[in-house]
């Protein structure tokens, strides 16, 4: 999987992490690292572009959780702990759907995985990039 980073400034500045390739157990750490670098550089809003991700395993969910935690100012567990970190999103979930992390254009099978695990309930999903960027405002 390849990862590239864009910044789009509208009402707010959104860091767009564009993925190309399968997001699985062998690649999810790349996404976490890209998210970590973005947050370290001051990002408050991250859009993960999944339009070129044909497959996502549950490890992709761990990456989303970890990035959301970073954006919320939480200290995520280490990567092994991150595998079991789903519960750590509780503060954001209890407060409602978090909006600092959003997703763009998941393939049908990827969307299905998000829905089957309930993740789609608290990570907004968009099909259109302009609409996704506007949703951060």
């Amino acid at each position, binding site marked *: 999987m390849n990862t590239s980073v864009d910044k789009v400034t509208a009402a707010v500045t959104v860091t767009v992490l564009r993925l190309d390739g*399968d997001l*699985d*157990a*062998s690649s999810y750490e790349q996404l976490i690292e890209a998210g970590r670098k973005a947050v370290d550089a001051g990002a408050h809003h991250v859009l993960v572009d999944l339009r070129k991700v044909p*497959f996502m*395993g*549950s*490890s992709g*969910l761990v990456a989303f959780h970890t990035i959301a935690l970073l954006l919320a100012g939480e200290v995520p567990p280490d990567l092994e702990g991150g*595998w*079991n*970190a*789903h*519960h*750590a*999103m*509780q*503060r954001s*979930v*209890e407060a409602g759907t978090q909006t600092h992390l959003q997703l763009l254009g998941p393939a*049908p*099978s990827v969307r*299905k*995985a998000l*829905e*089957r*695990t*309930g993740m789609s309930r*608290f990570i907004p999903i968009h099909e259109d990039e302009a609409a996704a960027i506007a949703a951060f405002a």
Partner: protein
Amino acid sequence: MATHPDGRLPVVTATRSLHLPEARQEDLRAIRAFVGDAARSLGAQDAVADDVVQAVDESATNVIRHGYRGMPGRLEVAVERDGPDLIVAIRDDAPPFDPTDFVIQDLDTPLAGRRPGGFGIHLTRTCVDRVTHTGRAPAGNELILIRRLEHPTQERTT
């Protein structure tokens, strides 16, 4: 040949198998490609093949990452057609672990109330119709995943 959990002899029309003597995380992509191709060649439509691929990826990831703790280890994946069913057998030499014992989380419960982790097992169980596990002492597992070919997929959330 995998034995159907009902005990009946499978009416196997074809079998595809993949043997990895030293499976690693980097092999997951090849495993997915093999399973997707095998499922389609045995009559699965794309949505069904995608479900089977997801289930096998999650199971294989658990074996490689947790069973073998990242060290290379034997992994065998066999895909068969048994009448209306696809049957996938995943065999390894890792310490016995039965994913069917895992309690599925209630998706209506906020994550705050959920047991941490386990989405891989959850996905496996929601993507197929039946999962059975047989462990061997002191090490080794056979996981059988059964997916009906004609089953609708859209409502499969539990």
